[in-house]
């Protein structure tokens, strides 16, 4: 276990090194930082002096080493927009994004496993076919469109609905989608302070309501993907000899489905899931923009719009770090679930 962690730490360092080189190269090629700092009226001689003072005329390697030395201490310089250390800016925006990703992940895990398993156990059932149909639609519609449709339906409200108003369920649905301001779709409301820069939406019902639409729209692509993945894997596992043998042993179907089959089904799903959590962080850029969710994604888009290079670089480094951490965690979990993987060098 410890050997595994040490090995993974070296991997992580290597990955972060590569990311840092890429991030740093951007710094050198994404416009002139001096131009971003000073106004139009500053003469060329002063610009040159500033350039010299900031070390921008030094060779690439010297500049990189200086950057790396600071980066190790989590110092990536000052943000031009916010005029404060970029790490502080990112840390302030990080909790909002992480909470959105956490809520989405929860949604995906809680829904994809039962739906995927159900549609594998009963592939011909009407409900399974319905889920498969909806999931294709979900995969094909881009996140921002889903978000806009959700806002139109649940936050702004519509004037016409196909549901009959004289039935119980019809009027309930009508209420849901015709009420203006039914669901909050702007920002994250009034989150509760936990500590430091961390304000949470999970502590109050009000906060949770703010999470609903952004989380659904962020999940709209991943959830169908996972439903289909789990279904396909489960279908294959159910055909296996060991499932037949378990039946021949007289084991109950419930135990066969949820222990014998599900455990094997989840192995590839865990691997894919680890990568997808990272992708989810990337997708937050779209979701956060549509819902004006004050997280890292929205911050990153603003930073790009205004060429806030230090902030961009910091974002890239932090997201890289998140990727590395989640992948390591996923490998750890995978090793715990799959006995054929040995985390340590222990002889078999």
């Amino acid at each position, binding site marked *: 276990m410890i050997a595994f962690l040490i090995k993974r730490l070296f991997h992580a360092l290597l990955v972060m090194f590569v990311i840092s080189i890429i991030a740093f190269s951007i710094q050198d090629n994404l416009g002139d930082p001096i131009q971003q700092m000073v106004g139009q009226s500053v003469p060329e001689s002063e610009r040159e002096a500033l350039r010299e003072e900031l070390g921008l005329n030094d060779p690439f390697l010297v500049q990189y080493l200086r950057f790396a030395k600071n980066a190790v201490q989590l110092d990536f310089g000052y943000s031009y927009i916010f005029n404060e250390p970029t790490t502080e800016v990112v840390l302030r925006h990080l909790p909002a994004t992480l909470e959105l990703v956490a809520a989405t992940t929860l949604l995906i895990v809680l829904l994809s496993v039962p739906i995927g398993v159900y549609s594998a156990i009963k592939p011909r059932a009407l409900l399974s076919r319905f889920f498969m149909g909806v999931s294709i639609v979900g995969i094909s519609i881009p996140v921002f469109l889903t978000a806009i449709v959700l806002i139109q339906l649940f936050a702004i409200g519509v004037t016409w609905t196909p549901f009959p108003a004289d039935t119980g369920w019809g009027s309930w649905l009508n209420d849901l989608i015709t009420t203006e301001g039914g669901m909050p779709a702007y920002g994250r409301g009034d989150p509760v302070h936990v500590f430091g820069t961390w304000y949470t939406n999970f502590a109050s019902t009000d906060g949770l309501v703010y999470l609903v639409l952004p989380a659904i729209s962020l999940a709209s692509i991943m959830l169908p993907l996972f439903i289909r993945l789990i279904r396909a894997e489960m279908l294959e596992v159910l055909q296996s000899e060991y499932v037949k*043998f378990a039946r021949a*042993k007289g084991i109950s179907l419930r135990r066969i489905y949820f*222990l014998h089959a599900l455990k094997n089904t989840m192995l590839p799903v865990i691997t894919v899931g680890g990568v997808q959590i990272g992708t989810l962080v990337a997708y937050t850029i779209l979701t956060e923009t549509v819902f004006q969710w004050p997280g890292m994604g929205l911050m990153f888009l603003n930073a790009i719009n205004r060429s806030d290079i230090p902030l961009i670089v910091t974002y890239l480094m932090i997201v890289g770090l998140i990727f590395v951490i989640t992948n390591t965690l996923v490998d750890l979990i995978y090793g715990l679930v799959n006995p054929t993987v040995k985390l340590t060098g222990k002889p078999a």
Partner: protein
Amino acid sequence: MSLLEVNNLDVRFALRRGDVKALRDVSFSLDRGERLGIVGESGAGKSVAAFTLLNLIARPGYIAGGSIRFDGQELTGMSDRALRRIRGNRISMIFQDPMMTLNPVLSIGEQMVECLKAHRRIGSREARAIALRKLEQVHIPSPEARLDQYPHELSGGMRQRVIIAIALLLDPDIIIADEPTTALDVTIQAEIMDLLLELCEKHNVGLILITHDLGVVSQVTQRMLVMYAGRVIEQGPTREIINDPQHPYTQGLMNALPQMATPGSRLNQIPGSMPSLDNLPSGCAFHPRCGFVTRPDGSERSACRTRVPEFVASGNCRVACHMVAEMLDQERIPAEETPR
């Protein structure tokens, strides 16, 4: 009455282009402690027969007719819940490929204990003790350690021993072994077969051995069935069938054994291959490959092409063949004609 009686069993697979008859009119019985061999080429319906006994055929397969009586209970049409009490408990199975049969993510102990717990009200510790004892019975070295190991840590032969131990866990009345040694190394095959035979004899367990190895059948079983294209074509005491096969197909199988060939010559084979089940020849399904459709005097026995042969008794055996029936008739004619 026998422990297990299968009568006129019909199994079909409902496919889009129509039903395929995988088993037709299969009847046999098994007494307590008896060992029965089911022999035939691949696709003859041996495995379908095995899986049907416990109603484990997967969709689109279904039992279209016939009965399976086990210890006075009718198994066809029995609820899955009730069948579950018999599966693994009173009738257990051994599968072909030990590399695929055990669940890769559950430890050997878990897979044994869950089987015990499914059939008996028993504590984990007690179940583990029984599992350990069964592992000892199948001669697995350091059985205590094996309980906590996973299938991938065991060799193929070891895994098949574990599977035999699982099959014996609840002291069943019958074990159905579907080609239990086919996937194993030749050197281990005999070892596993001996073990299975030893344990069945010791615990008086009935064995239904499905195989295409005539050698194994002759050593292990007391009675045997020969299957062809979903039908039983010959059945009787193993020794009699092996020594004096009546059906041309059984004769062909015996001749195909490498021991039967003259050294240096080509091995004998039955010409052609088994017909696909959804496109069976008319009459006797074997007639296109049979060398006896034409009588020794040159005339043709048209019944072979037009009528499905009935079983006729020949000694202690029952054979479904027009030629055998004709020969038996000829022997009988003088005796029957005298009183007239």
